[in-house]
């Protein structure tokens, strides 16, 4: 997004990605373009601020998600540990029992 010099005048263009190509989309010149440019320059800041302000629902969701992920990971780890201690091992992501390991 920015000003581009074409001949003697400056024009305001917006860059848009279309697959692997980047297109320049004409937005305008003169006062209106200056206003748009000013708004555009402050919008990432506003966007970042809005993103940092999480809603209470969002905070709740993330809290529950974090606790659940932590517990699930731990259970998964303890399961792997129990299988390994019982004489199993993974072969191509499949649990197999080692040969000559008697059940205790």
């Amino acid at each position, binding site marked *: 997004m920015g000003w581009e010099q074409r001949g003697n005048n400056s024009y305001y263009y917006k860059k848009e990605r279309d697959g692997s190509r980047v297109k320049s989309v004409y937005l305008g010149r003169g006062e209106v373009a200056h206003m748009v440019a000013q708004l555009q320059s402050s919008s990432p800041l506003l966007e970042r601020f809005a993103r940092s302000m999480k809603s209470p*629902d969002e905070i*709740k*969701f993330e*809290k*529950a998600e*974090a*606790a*659940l992920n*932590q*517990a*699930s*990971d*731990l*259970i*998964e*780890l*303890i*399961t*792997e*540990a*129990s*299988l*390994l*201690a*019982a*004489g*199993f*091992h*993974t072969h191509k992501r499949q*649990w197999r*029992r080692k040969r000559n390991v008697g*059940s*205790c």
Partner: protein
Amino acid sequence: MSEAVEESIAAKTEQTRAKFRELLDKTNKGNPQPKDVAALAELLNGNKSLELWRDVLSAAQYAERAVIENSPGVHGVKECWRLRLASLRNELGYVGAPILEQLLIQDAALSWLKLSIVELQYSHVMKQSITLTLGIFWEKRLSAAQRRFTRACETLARVRKLSRNTPALQFNIATAGGQQVNVAK
């Protein structure tokens, strides 16, 4: 539950996780050192194992409370979730199952609950006019919840299948004052 208690549970869970990860990296290979396998077995079945299993159980219980308390809805709905979760655990054979299976049942039931909550929220969001970004965001949340539920069920089924002929996997924690015992079915 106070924030200090929540933080201490989270910190302890992280500590246990790190300990396990370290030992698992050493043991989950073709020819692990016998001393590493012995250390892992000691961690699971040794003198300090009771504390370890308690930590894992408290992490699972904390997760259950966090999911239910932070779910949308009034208190009555949350109470219904709690009861449904308990009945689902019983349907999956929680009572009388070895401790490892109990944990996996708890995980599967909780993942089911989380999936149900996310599905409800997803359908509520999709009824409104939303942006594409928000739609993708909810799709991802739903996919993650579905993946977690599938993985929990698969792990439970795998452990049940493998433990059929492996009594070492069917250990239980004895009640107060007792010793840990292995129970073969």
